[in-house]
């Protein structure tokens, strides 16, 4: 079963923060996360196809990483925290089993 639609990432990051403020970053991406555990009506195993890695970098430096296994739900959600220091840009990346990378960016202004 191949994806009909390309994964669409969405992120919720505050646009502004004070220096030293702890902010919560929430991300979502549309994806079936085919576990490789299911069988089709013909009894054949549906091959695994998941997003297996999520990374978040700020101003080029990786700050948080998640490795996802087939137990992760479809349309995966990931939230984590970041301590604001300076203004800059987040780059979020999702990588699938075939090596395709999907990306989202978000600017943060630190007062």
């Amino acid at each position, binding site marked *: 079963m191949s994806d009909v639609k390309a994964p669409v990432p969405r992120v*919720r990051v505050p646009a502004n923060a004070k220096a030293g403020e702890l902010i919560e970053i*929430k991300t*979502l991406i549309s994806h079936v996360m085919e576990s490789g555990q299911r069988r089709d009506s013909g009894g054949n195993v549906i091959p695994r196809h998941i997003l297996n890695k999520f990374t978040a970098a700020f101003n080029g430096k990786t700050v948080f990483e998640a490795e996802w296994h087939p137990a992760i739900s479809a349309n995966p*959600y990931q*939230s984590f925290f970041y301590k604001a220091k300076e203004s800059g840009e987040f780059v979020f990346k999702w990588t699938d089993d075939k090596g395709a990378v999907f990306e989202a960016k978000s600017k943060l202004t630190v007062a």
Partner: protein
Amino acid sequence: MISRREFLQATAAASAIVTAGGLGPLGRVAAQQKLSQAEILRFDPLGKLTIVHVTDIHAQLMPLYFREPDINLGVGDDRGRPPHLTGQAFRDYFKIASGSAEDYALTHSDFVALAKNYGRMGGMDRIATVINAIRSERGADNVLLLDGGDTWQGSWTTLQTKGQDMVDVMSALKVDAMTSHWEFTLGAERVKEIADKAPFAFLAQNIRSVEWQEPVFKARQTYERGGAKVAVIGQAFPRTPIANPRWMIADWEFGIRENELIKEVADARAEGADIVVLLSHNGFDVDRKLASRVKGIDVILTAHTHDAMPGVLKVGDAILVATGSHGKFVSRIDLDVRDKKVAGFRYKLLPIFSDAIAPDAAMKAMIEKIRAPYAQDLSRELARTESLLYRRGNFNGTYDDLICNAMLKERDAEIALSPGFRWGGTLVPGDAITFESLSNATAMTYPNCYRMEMSGKQLRDILEDVADNIFHPDPYFQGGGDMVRVGGMGYAIDVSKPVNQRISNMTLLKTGQPIDPARNYVVAGWASVNEGTQGPPIWEVVQKHLADVKTVRLEPNASVKVSGA
């Protein structure tokens, strides 16, 4: 109608003779006591603040009979503790005389005789009288009226108006805030629509959007009453998406959310609240556990499990109130608030004896108007009963036996499954079974009566799973109402065992043969939580059955053998 109060007092005296045989000497004395509105309302006030609690009304606008359970087992730490007491144990614990008005209101004992003696209970017009009386005694600015939920479900009129009848009634009563459970079976959109427009606050700290984990409803509201800042935090039934159709509220996630509650309590205090009230639909045992773990709550108004207790229970500093169901009771608690603390309190569970309390004229007119378009349907007599028909009890209720019999026959099934709902009124022998009575036991938004094949193993898995939802020793892992009612099949249950070890001796009653895990059985049931369930509404199935039998006579149901209690 004018002479209702006199009628009751006359009946109370006269019926001591009528029912003397069933009541015994103590009962006779008790029954001769005058049951007057003034006596019911009598309260020695304390402090300045009064909180009035109603809950689990299940849309009962009119007075009704409601028999309390004869079996209500507690497990784990809750075993044998109030409110898990019935009959004599309940009377002993709360020092209630056998045959007294309180005995009738709070236990199942001698129900038929006492029902004749003391009459129906509840009625929103009587509740309006009681609330108005408390407000005028204390001053409206000193009274906070809170509704624990399960208000917009359980009657034909509320089903037909999608809860609007009860929303209008509760608005007219000037309810300050409510929380919720069965309301969600009207669907997310309807609940949101009402919550956004209603003059009362719809509070639920424990609901989040599935997508972004954001609060769906307001968590709390602070009221200035009796010179105190009272923060009310709402706690909706945490297991709604498990116990009821999740597809109706697919975008919402529930749960107890203890951590978030701890934060709400802290925030409320930080914002200057003198006292914190949890308006909860957790169920009593969950609230008792929660009270021992979440500090800083002064009063927990419990709901869901329909327990009525004539006294409060204290867990640490928290006062737990249990107000019962179906409009049978109103709780009044007076609080003496000093230095951001409850320095003293006084509590009374007010029984709403419908023949003793005069109906409030405005509310009475409103109810008549609400019911008028449906009056003909509601009063339609479907059959008569020679048996006591009731719902409550952990394993069976005779009303459920009737529903199961109807499903077995009308759906041509070997086994019938009927959910262990706690709502629905009681009928005494000789009563007409009207469409209103039937709809009080069945009116809901997913009433389809399915017919399907299930293997013996599936049946067993269902019984085990439901049993674990009721008898898991940790209340945080409990999730349901009473045990699923079974027709056509008997079984034994050891409530003290862990999951998958409680159920044994499943037997097909028709043949006396053990249920074969590998065989398929034809099963009829209703109130499936799955979307797209097909079949006629359950009330149609039961109506058809009643039209055939005309008179209901039920044999005592001994098909469930209980041990380990």
